[in-house]
């Protein structure tokens, strides 16, 4: 459903992505790991064109988002995103955060959007928070709301950009549990993460990135037990034996 070929991204003189080729299939749960600065986040941001790729092609459901005729707003409705810093809208109540885009973008009738939002709030275990403002929530709660907000657009795939990196340790689990549920339901997910346990146990594919390239694309078990590249071995040694 997503096909990326020869993707390059430069910020001025800084060459961040150096030729990414990737095929994402329906139902894939892909964990993307690698040292900081390796281009993991930039790759995610290119997939929904929050960052303009410099060179290359990205097809989402066979539509080339690099083509000038592509309506990126329509494509983005199919590609949800969850951010490291949640990015909830602080001036809107929780329920409005969830219903805003369905009502304004998808033109879903308000009644239906509200019903759906309530269902999603129940799903992430926060139905009692519908009428509070995000500033009253803990980090873990914010991220669960952010996931509900992404789900409200009924996306085909969700991009998670380090969803637990800004959380206090005791809140990481509640967010990962929601993500696990999504994985069980068959949602296609791309997850940039530092949670090695999650990558190992939930993902069905693991990408190891370094220096703007995908160095390994394999199943998680193989990667953790038997990494092929030197760089992956080094990386695992650092993160697992800290």
């Amino acid at each position: 459903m997503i096909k990326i070929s020869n993707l390059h991204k430069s910020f001025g003189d800084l060459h961040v992505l150096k030729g990414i080729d990737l095929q994402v299939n329906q139902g894939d749960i892909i964990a993307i790991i690698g040292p900081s600065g390796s281009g993991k986040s930039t790759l995610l941001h290119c997939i929904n064109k929050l960052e303009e790729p410099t060179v290359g092609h990205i097809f989402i459901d066979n539509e080339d988002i690099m083509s000038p005729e592509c309506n990126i707003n329509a494509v983005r409705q199919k590609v949800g995103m969850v951010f490291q810093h949640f990015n909830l809208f602080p001036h809107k109540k929780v329920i409005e955060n969830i219903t805003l885009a369905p009502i304004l973008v998808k033109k879903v009738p308000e009644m239906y959007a509200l019903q759906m939002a309530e269902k999603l709030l129940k799903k992430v275990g926060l139905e009692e928070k519908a009428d509070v403002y995000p500033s009253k929530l803990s980090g873990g709660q914010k991220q669960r709301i952010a996931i509900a907000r992404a789900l409200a657009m009924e996306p085909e795939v969700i991009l998670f950009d380090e969803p637990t990196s800004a959380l206090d340790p005791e809140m990481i689990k509640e967010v990962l549990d929601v993500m696990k549920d999504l994985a069980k339901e068959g949602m296609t997910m791309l997850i940039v993460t530092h949670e090695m346990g999650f990558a190992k146990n939930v993902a069905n594919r693991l990408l190891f990135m370094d220096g703007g390239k995908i160095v390994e694309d394999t199943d998680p078990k193989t990667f953790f037990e038997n990494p092929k590249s030197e760089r992956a071995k080094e990386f695992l040694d650092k993160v697992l034996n800290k």
Partner: protein
Amino acid sequence: MENYLNLLYNIFIVDDRYMLLVNGLIFTLGVTFVAAVIGIILGMLLSIMMIADLRPFKSIKSQKLAFLRNFNPVAKIALVYITVIRGTPTVVQLFILANVIFIGSLKNTPIFVTASLAFGLNSAAYVAEIIRAGIQGLDKGQLEAARALGMSYKLSMRVVVIPQAVKKIMPALVSEFIVLLKETSVVSMIGGVDLTFAAKSIISVTYRAAEPWIVVALIYLALITIFTYFMRKIEKRLRESD
């Protein structure tokens, strides 16, 4: 005591001299109001000119002309305007408008118009900077989150960015209009009949300087106190979600 009351009576009441103050007050408020309206409208326009990413030569291919890719003429115009206005004293601008620009067939332009225009053009530069800083100072993740949900740039600005920016901008904008109200006190230098003109007129016939100036000071203080009181109330309501 009675003598002093008598004196005040002689200064302000005899010959209806208080009417000078009343008319001065109306002139001051009128100029401030018209200038504020001009300032807000032109200020918004200037800030949009700076924020909108209008680079007509963005996709130029020639390497020789590559420097044109980042050329944004609209933003440049706004920037030059702001630099000139903020780089010269208000009084000087007032004199230039009255004595250099509004001459010939424009010579008979009412001073109210000249003054309102001068202060409005001046205020716009400051308002533009306040709005620009408010919008650009907003967490970039807010726009990203809105765009990732499929909202167009315009819609994202309207429902996500601007409502939050307004809240942040309010205190600075209130300060700007307080400054504006007080700055209009130099308008008598080009013949404007404002509060300071009233004070000078009263002094010239009563030979008493202290009382008229103190009364004028109290009028300004009262105006600004009332204005601030209402603005605080509005700000408080806007802060509801924090």
